[in-house]
């Protein structure tokens, strides 16, 4: 399964009241094109989606916050897993789309191939769902997404995915508009 297909699966089961924070590059584009709008599409700040999602989850405790990030982003901001585990907001869920590469910049390898996600996340004290594997059945994938999404506590779902990304047009919103749209939903 490709990362964008997981995003499409997720999009089909969202209530519409969640706020998604997506990591820069392909993943933000895919979230823009496949999920309800508006969300917080990060265009830069590689390594910071978990931190942004953590701050947002604290400021909006009544809202379910979903972070979707790539393995390159995860590794660049690995320490933020510790901070998040320490703060533990129950309205925060993290989905890692690990395609093993920096797909956005031309499919160069990341170092994520050596990671053992259950051990890594257990080590951070983060409750985690059994990882989605590349050859999981669609039913298994849907189940794991449901368990993750409806977890009553902070929860992480790692997904090992294939790297191909569809060609999608650039996000037409200026970042200032992305912020303004969030301000609208804060009121």
């Amino acid at each position, binding site marked *: 399964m490709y990362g964008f297909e997981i995003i499409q699966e997720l999009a089909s089961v969202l209530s519409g009241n969640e706020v998604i924070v997506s990591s820069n590059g392909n993943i933000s584009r895919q979230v823009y094109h496949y999920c309800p709008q508006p969300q917080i599409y990060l265009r830069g700040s590689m390594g910071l989606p978990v931190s942004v999602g953590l701050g947002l989850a604290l400021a909006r405790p009544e809202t379910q916050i979903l972070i979707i990030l790539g393995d390159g982003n995860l590794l660049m901001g690995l320490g933020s897993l510790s*901070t998040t585990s320490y703060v533990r907001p129950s309205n925060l869920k993290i989905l890692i789309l690990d395609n093993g590469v920096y797909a956005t910049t031309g499919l160069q390898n990341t170092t994520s191939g050596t990671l053992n996600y259950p051990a890594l996340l257990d080590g951070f004290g983060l409750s985690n769902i059994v990882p989605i594997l590349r050859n999981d059945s669609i039913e298994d994938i849907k189940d794991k997404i449901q368990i993750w999404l409806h977890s009553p506590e902070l929860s992480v779902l790692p997904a090992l995915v294939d790297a191909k990304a569809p060609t999608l047009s650039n996000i037409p919103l200026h970042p200032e508009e992305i912020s303004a749209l969030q301000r609208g939903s804060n009121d």
Partner: protein
Amino acid sequence: MINPAEFLDFLGEKGFSFASGVPCSYFSRMINEFETHQESITYIPATREDEAVGIASGVAFGGSRAFVIMQNSGYATIGDALTSLAQLYKLPMLLVISWRGLEPDRDFPEHSLMGDVTEDTLRGYQVPYWELTDEGWQQTIELALTKMEESSRPVALLVKQGVL
């Protein structure tokens, strides 16, 4: 010296309900005071200063306000968090930065060069800043916050040894 409890009370009154950052010894008294201010200000200890700017950005996306404490050595690590996140998305926050590497730090060469270029890097990244001093500290903060709200961007306070 500014009383750190009064400093936190003042920022709380100005609407800051969150703070994050990485400690500097200059801020140890203030960080201790967070314990007595838990009701009004939630402090999130970060692992890196760019992470703290990320957290403050998330808080701002959610319509609340956070300030971020860091050494100037930490300021040296937040360039991308500023330019491609907080400044780009117009997310207001107050950076409280210790100004290491000046005269009292002559035995700490690790701070010297950063001490020399601190103001240049603030100007270079277009972050408006004010030096916080004992005298008139409330007015200085008010000036900084007026700029922060008007520009909807990060602004900074530079804090020398013994001020907080």
